[in-house]
């Protein structure tokens, strides 16, 4: 058992998989000698050498294209796209290429790759370096989409992603890199498609992802302390595959559903989950599901404005309390 930062968990997760399997290779901008712009790959170049940890030019299409070509011919690449906003530069590979090849070729082509990327806001980077883009990826058939919130989950879900035979978009939250958690020793391997109840409760179900998980948990504590409202917080962890069983069985117990989403309002992952609940858990619900999201805006840079935009502990608690008391 050791206390590890989310950042160091990324390093440990990649190292665990590269040490296990020589077919796992790693490429991206500044990941090697420089140790990554978020210092989340420090030491991997020294440990595994320049043939397995390869610095690339600023060529996002080349990075994802090369990862795909390597994956379809036998390697298991991990590709880093530095900021998830840059996915827009190489979206062809995500939207048209490695997501569709297996289907279009009637199963001839297999693409076991992981795209790691720094996602989310809170770092005052402005509209082009702060977005939560999980919904860009979630809507594409053929992809898996994962977003861990704790150091242990980083290692376990990264290992599961590397070992998965399908392409996985692995969203690391930039504002979680410095957070810490207890991590057990030895190999850690988790399972994709499993949500986790991080705080049990009986009065309402709150679904959250990545940075919104600790905020939802803090809001739940506040609601308990100040209003006696006992919320269950579920870390969705994996948007595709989606663990609807854990979510719907929680709703069946609590009868209320809230989502806390960092993405802008339209077409966020919470909309899909509310839709599923409306279809399949309508009679379990005692009130309308509520989505707590960033407004439909680009993210501003100034701290006071960015803080206003992203769902905060106070906003989550206030919205849940207002809804339950109405």
């Amino acid at each position, binding site marked *: 058992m050791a206390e590890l930062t989310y950042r160091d968990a990324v390093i440990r997760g990649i190292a665990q998989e590269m040490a296990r399997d020589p077919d796992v290779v790693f490429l991206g901008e500044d990941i090697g000698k420089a140790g990554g712009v978020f210092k989340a790959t420090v030491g991997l170049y020294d440990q595994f050498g320049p043939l397995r940890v390869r610095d690339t030019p600023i060529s996002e299409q080349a990075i994802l294209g090369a990862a795909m070509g390597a994956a379809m011919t036998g390697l298991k*690449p991990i590709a880093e796209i530095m900021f998830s906003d840059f996915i827009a530069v190489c979206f062809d590979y995500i939207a048209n290429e490695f997501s569709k090849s297996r289907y279009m070729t009637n199963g001839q082509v297999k693409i076991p790759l992981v795209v790691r990327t720094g996602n989310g806001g809170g770092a005052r980077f402005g509209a082009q370096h702060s977005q939560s883009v999980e919904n860009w990826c979630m809507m594409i058939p053929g992809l898996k989409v994962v977003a861990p919130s704790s150091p242990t989950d980083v290692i376990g879900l990264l290992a599961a992603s590397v070992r998965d035979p399908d392409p996985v978009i692995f969203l690391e939250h930039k504002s979680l890199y410095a957070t810490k958690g207890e991590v057990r020793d030895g190999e850690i391997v988790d399972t994709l498609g499993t949500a986790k109840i991080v705080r049990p409760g009986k009065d309402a179900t709150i679904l959250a992802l990545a940075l919104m998980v600790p905020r939802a948990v803090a809001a739940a504590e506040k609601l308990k302390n100040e209003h006696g409202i006992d919320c269950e917080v579920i870390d969705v962890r994996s948007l595709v595959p989606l663990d609807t069983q854990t979510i719907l069985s929680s709703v069946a117990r609590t009868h209320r559903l809230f989502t806390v989403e960092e993405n802008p309002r339209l077409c966020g992952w919470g909309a899909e989950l509310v839709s599923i609940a409306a279809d399949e858990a309508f009679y379990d619900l005692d009130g309308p599901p509520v989505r707590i999201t960033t407004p439909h805006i680009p993210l501003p840079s100034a701290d006071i404005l960015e803080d206003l935009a992203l769902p905060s502990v106070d906003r989550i608690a206030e919205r849940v309390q207002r809804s339950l008391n109405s």
Partner: protein
Amino acid sequence: MSTIEDRAPAAKATLNDDIGEDTRLAMYRTQFVIREAEQRAYDLFLQNLVKGTSHLSLGQEAVAAGFAVAMRKGDLSFCTYRGHAHTLARGVPIDKVLGELMGRDNGLMRGKGGSMHLTSVDHGVMGSYAIIGAHLPIACGAAWRAQYKGEKDVSVCFFGDGTTNIGAFHEALNFAVVWKLPVVFVCENNLYMEYTPIGDVTAVEHPAADRAAAYGLPRIIVDGNDADAVYRAASTAYDKARAGEGPSLIECMTYRYSGHSRADPAKYRPEGELEKWKERDPIKLYRERLKQFGVSDEAIARIENDVKREVNEATETCKAAPPPALDLLTTDVYADGGFAWRN
């Protein structure tokens, strides 16, 4: 390296030159398969038996034949939506290709990909890509795997002149040179990006070759209607790649006889241009080449008749083939064989 300017006449050639009779017969046969199969694909359009769109390589057969015949088993082809020719050139059965175009169960991908996505991993055809430029970085990745694992196969990436103006082309060229990858980039310059002459929208005369210097690569322009010239350029580039000396960029000058796609009657071409290129038709040219080498008219006719029979038989096989099973709609989205996104 042979270029269009210094192409040597084939007169006084001997059968025992660097290419040899067997290879030449294979290249002729490959070109003839492409010609006949592409013409048949067009005829099947007119009968509404091939749906959707299709991009033919009539007139460009020598590029596909020269590069494919020079390959070894295990070398990998990456094609564009104009990929029927390169797929056939690797030995994929004609009925598998026509069946895919016709949306039949006997098709290469059982109708799930269609004309623009022909793939046969067993033949080294690693896909046909319909987003311009996408497959150049993908070919780099396959070459990276060969380099990393110490395998000797070469990744060969075919694309049109229009591809040279998209970002992925430039990213891939730089990437391949910096990483010294065993990849060969083949530009088939057929003079038109789609409907627009490539010269009208490109800063340099030779859209691929004139960019080579920017990536420290030699300027290579090949007569793409002469399979021998193509074969020699391909062999040189493959040897370089296998020797660990990095990528090549080869521009093949050629011409497509039909429009860009099914919907294009190619009215934009100046009068007489098509006829001028047909004087140097790759198949006519190569038939004369074989005769110069002493191949008999009978031997040539035998190849042609065999191929015509194969195309006819393939056509009948496809016409008799059922449509794909309906359960294919949701198979192979994910590795578990299905499309489940939730539990």
